[in-house]
Protein backbone atom coordinates (compact mmCIF):
# COMPACT_ATOMS: atom_id res chain seq x y z
CA UNK A 1 0.00 0.00 0.00
CA UNK A 2 1.54 3.26 -1.15
CA UNK A 3 -0.77 6.19 -0.68
CA UNK A 4 0.03 9.82 -1.51
CA UNK A 5 -2.50 12.58 -0.96
CA UNK A 6 -2.36 16.33 -1.53
CA UNK A 7 -5.39 17.93 0.04
CA UNK A 8 -6.85 21.09 1.53
CA UNK A 9 -8.84 19.10 4.09
CA UNK A 10 -7.63 18.12 7.54
CA UNK A 11 -6.55 14.56 8.24
CA UNK A 12 -6.69 12.28 11.28
CA UNK A 13 -3.33 10.71 12.26
CA UNK A 14 -5.07 8.01 14.32
CA UNK A 15 -7.07 6.89 11.29
CA UNK A 16 -4.00 6.92 9.03
CA UNK A 17 -2.07 4.88 11.60
CA UNK A 18 -4.91 2.38 11.98
CA UNK A 19 -4.77 1.59 8.26
CA UNK A 20 -1.02 1.09 8.43
CA UNK A 21 -1.32 -1.07 11.54
CA UNK A 22 -3.93 -3.25 9.84
CA UNK A 23 -1.32 -4.39 7.30
CA UNK A 24 0.06 -6.76 9.93
CA UNK A 25 3.66 -5.68 9.55
CA UNK A 26 4.40 -5.34 13.26
CA UNK A 27 6.24 -2.00 13.09
CA UNK A 28 4.60 1.34 12.28
CA UNK A 29 6.39 4.69 12.38
CA UNK A 30 4.96 8.14 11.80
CA UNK A 31 5.84 11.80 11.64
CA UNK A 32 3.43 14.73 11.93
CA UNK A 33 4.34 18.31 11.08
CA UNK A 34 2.18 20.97 12.74
CA UNK A 35 1.90 24.77 12.40
CA UNK A 36 3.68 26.34 15.36
CA UNK A 37 1.71 29.33 16.62
CA UNK A 38 4.63 31.25 18.02
CA UNK A 39 6.05 34.70 17.27
CA UNK A 40 2.60 36.18 16.75
CA UNK A 41 1.77 33.80 13.90
CA UNK A 42 -1.91 33.93 12.93
CA UNK A 43 -1.93 31.52 10.01
CA UNK A 44 0.21 29.74 7.47
CA UNK A 45 -0.53 29.58 3.78
CA UNK A 46 0.86 26.67 1.80
CA UNK A 47 1.37 27.53 -1.83
CA UNK A 48 2.05 24.58 -4.12
CA UNK A 49 2.70 23.76 -7.77
CA UNK A 50 -0.41 21.85 -8.88
CA UNK A 51 0.45 18.73 -10.82
CA UNK A 52 4.15 18.80 -9.99
CA UNK A 53 3.47 18.63 -6.23
CA UNK A 54 1.54 15.37 -6.60
CA UNK A 55 4.17 13.97 -8.98
CA UNK A 56 7.02 14.91 -6.66
CA UNK A 57 5.26 13.36 -3.65
CA UNK A 58 4.64 10.17 -5.61
CA UNK A 59 8.28 10.03 -6.75
CA UNK A 60 9.49 10.50 -3.16
CA UNK A 61 7.15 7.73 -1.97
CA UNK A 62 8.30 5.40 -4.76
CA UNK A 63 11.92 6.11 -3.87
CA UNK A 64 11.26 5.18 -0.23
CA UNK A 65 9.48 2.00 -1.29
CA UNK A 66 12.46 1.04 -3.46
CA UNK A 67 14.97 1.62 -0.66
CA UNK A 68 13.22 -0.01 2.31
CA UNK A 69 11.10 -3.17 2.64
CA UNK A 70 7.79 -1.44 3.41
CA UNK A 71 4.37 -3.04 3.56
CA UNK A 72 2.73 0.35 3.70
CA UNK A 73 3.48 4.03 3.21
CA UNK A 74 1.20 7.04 3.61
CA UNK A 75 2.25 10.57 2.71
CA UNK A 76 -0.34 13.34 3.17
CA UNK A 77 0.45 17.01 2.60
CA UNK A 78 -2.02 19.84 2.94
CA UNK A 79 -2.20 23.05 0.93
CA UNK A 80 -4.09 26.28 1.43
CA UNK A 81 -4.49 28.32 4.61
CA UNK A 82 -3.83 26.62 7.95
CA UNK A 83 -4.33 28.02 11.45
CA UNK A 84 -1.82 27.64 14.27
CA UNK A 85 -1.72 24.08 15.65
CA UNK A 86 -3.21 22.59 12.49
CA UNK A 87 -1.43 19.63 10.97
CA UNK A 88 0.50 20.23 7.74
CA UNK A 89 1.98 16.87 6.83
CA UNK A 90 1.70 13.22 7.83
CA UNK A 91 4.20 10.50 7.02
CA UNK A 92 3.49 6.92 8.08
CA UNK A 93 5.35 3.71 7.28
CA UNK A 94 4.75 0.04 8.04
CA UNK A 95 7.42 -2.63 7.87
CA UNK A 96 8.37 -5.93 9.45
CA UNK A 97 11.56 -4.17 10.55
CA UNK A 98 11.44 -1.25 12.94
CA UNK A 99 14.63 0.28 11.54
CA UNK A 100 13.15 0.24 8.03
CA UNK A 101 9.93 1.87 9.22
CA UNK A 102 11.76 4.58 11.15
CA UNK A 103 14.41 5.29 8.52
CA UNK A 104 11.88 5.43 5.68
CA UNK A 105 9.78 7.81 7.78
CA UNK A 106 12.74 10.15 8.32
CA UNK A 107 13.70 9.90 4.65
CA UNK A 108 10.18 10.76 3.52
CA UNK A 109 9.87 13.92 5.58
CA UNK A 110 13.42 15.03 4.73
CA UNK A 111 12.79 14.63 1.01
CA UNK A 112 9.27 16.07 1.19
CA UNK A 113 10.75 19.22 2.77
CA UNK A 114 13.56 19.56 0.24
CA UNK A 115 12.15 18.13 -2.98
CA UNK A 116 8.41 18.84 -3.17
CA UNK A 117 7.19 22.17 -4.58
CA UNK A 118 5.52 23.79 -1.58
CA UNK A 119 6.10 27.26 -0.16
CA UNK A 120 5.01 28.57 3.22
CA UNK A 121 3.81 32.12 3.80
CA UNK A 122 3.29 33.27 7.37
CA UNK A 123 0.63 35.81 8.34
CA UNK A 124 1.04 37.45 11.75
CA UNK A 125 -1.53 38.94 14.09
CA UNK A 126 -0.36 42.46 13.14
CA UNK A 127 -1.33 41.74 9.54
CA UNK A 128 2.18 41.43 8.12
CA UNK A 129 3.13 38.47 5.96
CA UNK A 130 6.44 36.76 5.29
CA UNK A 131 7.54 33.97 2.96
CA UNK A 132 9.46 31.38 4.96
CA UNK A 133 13.09 31.16 3.85
CA UNK A 134 14.55 27.78 2.92
CA UNK A 135 17.16 26.50 5.33
CA UNK A 136 20.48 24.96 4.34
CA UNK A 137 19.98 22.37 7.08
CA UNK A 138 16.95 20.99 5.20
CA UNK A 139 19.00 20.47 2.03
CA UNK A 140 21.69 18.79 4.12
CA UNK A 141 19.10 16.51 5.75
CA UNK A 142 17.81 15.47 2.32
CA UNK A 143 21.32 14.96 0.95
CA UNK A 144 22.30 12.45 3.62
CA UNK A 145 20.01 9.78 2.13
Amino acid at each position, binding site marked *: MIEVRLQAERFDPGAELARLEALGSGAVASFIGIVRGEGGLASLRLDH*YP*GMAERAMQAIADEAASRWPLLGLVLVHRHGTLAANERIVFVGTASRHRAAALEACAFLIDWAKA*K*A*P*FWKQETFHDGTTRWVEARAI*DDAAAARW
Partner: protein
Amino acid sequence: MLYFAWVREAIGRDGERVDVPADVTTIADLLDRLAAGSDDHARAFADRARLRAALDQEFVSLAVPIGQARELAIFPPVTGG
Protein backbone atom coordinates in the same frame (compact mmCIF):
# COMPACT_ATOMS: atom_id res chain seq x y z
CA MET B 1 5.82 30.17 -17.56
CA LEU B 2 4.56 29.70 -14.03
CA TYR B 3 5.51 31.69 -10.94
CA PHE B 4 5.14 30.68 -7.30
CA ALA B 5 5.49 32.25 -3.84
CA TRP B 6 7.20 35.67 -3.75
CA VAL B 7 8.26 35.37 -7.40
CA ARG B 8 4.57 35.38 -8.30
CA GLU B 9 3.92 38.37 -6.03
CA ALA B 10 6.89 40.33 -7.43
CA ILE B 11 5.78 39.79 -11.01
CA GLY B 12 2.14 40.34 -10.13
CA ARG B 13 0.75 37.28 -11.90
CA ASP B 14 0.84 33.52 -11.53
CA GLY B 15 2.04 32.82 -15.04
CA GLU B 16 2.28 34.03 -18.60
CA ARG B 17 2.74 32.67 -22.09
CA VAL B 18 6.26 33.27 -23.39
CA ASP B 19 7.58 32.45 -26.85
CA VAL B 20 11.25 31.69 -26.40
CA PRO B 21 13.34 33.92 -28.71
CA ALA B 22 15.54 32.04 -31.16
CA ASP B 23 18.76 33.40 -29.59
CA VAL B 24 17.77 32.31 -26.06
CA THR B 25 19.16 28.94 -24.96
CA THR B 26 19.12 28.49 -21.19
CA ILE B 27 16.60 29.35 -18.50
CA ALA B 28 19.00 32.00 -17.21
CA ASP B 29 19.11 33.56 -20.70
CA LEU B 30 15.33 33.77 -20.74
CA LEU B 31 15.23 35.37 -17.29
CA ASP B 32 17.77 37.98 -18.54
CA ARG B 33 15.58 38.73 -21.52
CA LEU B 34 12.40 39.07 -19.46
CA ALA B 35 14.18 41.23 -16.86
CA ALA B 36 15.38 43.58 -19.59
CA GLY B 37 11.82 44.21 -20.69
CA SER B 38 9.99 44.75 -17.39
CA ASP B 39 10.79 46.26 -14.00
CA ASP B 40 8.61 43.67 -12.25
CA HIS B 41 10.51 40.80 -13.85
CA ALA B 42 13.83 42.55 -13.23
CA ARG B 43 13.02 42.83 -9.53
CA ALA B 44 11.72 39.24 -9.27
CA PHE B 45 14.77 37.81 -11.06
CA ALA B 46 17.41 40.11 -9.52
CA ASP B 47 19.00 37.59 -7.17
CA ARG B 48 19.49 34.37 -9.12
CA ALA B 49 20.83 32.58 -6.05
CA ARG B 50 17.33 32.80 -4.58
CA LEU B 51 15.62 31.32 -7.64
CA ARG B 52 14.91 27.73 -8.57
CA ALA B 53 13.32 26.31 -11.72
CA ALA B 54 11.34 23.35 -12.97
CA LEU B 55 11.18 22.39 -16.62
CA ASP B 56 8.12 20.31 -17.52
CA GLN B 57 7.69 19.71 -13.75
CA GLU B 58 11.25 18.47 -13.09
CA PHE B 59 13.66 20.51 -10.96
CA VAL B 60 16.55 21.83 -13.06
CA SER B 61 19.39 24.33 -12.76
CA LEU B 62 18.97 27.77 -14.35
CA ALA B 63 21.87 26.83 -16.64
CA VAL B 64 19.82 24.14 -18.38
CA PRO B 65 18.75 24.69 -22.02
CA ILE B 66 15.00 25.19 -22.41
CA GLY B 67 14.85 23.04 -25.55
CA GLN B 68 11.36 21.93 -26.50
CA ALA B 69 9.98 22.13 -22.95
CA ARG B 70 6.38 23.34 -22.74
CA GLU B 71 6.22 24.39 -19.07
CA LEU B 72 8.82 26.42 -17.19
CA ALA B 73 8.26 27.39 -13.56
CA ILE B 74 10.33 29.88 -11.55
CA PHE B 75 10.11 29.97 -7.75
CA PRO B 76 12.12 30.31 -4.53
CA PRO B 77 13.69 27.26 -2.83
CA VAL B 78 10.88 25.06 -1.53
CA THR B 79 9.78 25.24 2.11
CA GLY B 80 7.03 22.66 2.53
CA GLY B 81 6.75 19.76 4.89
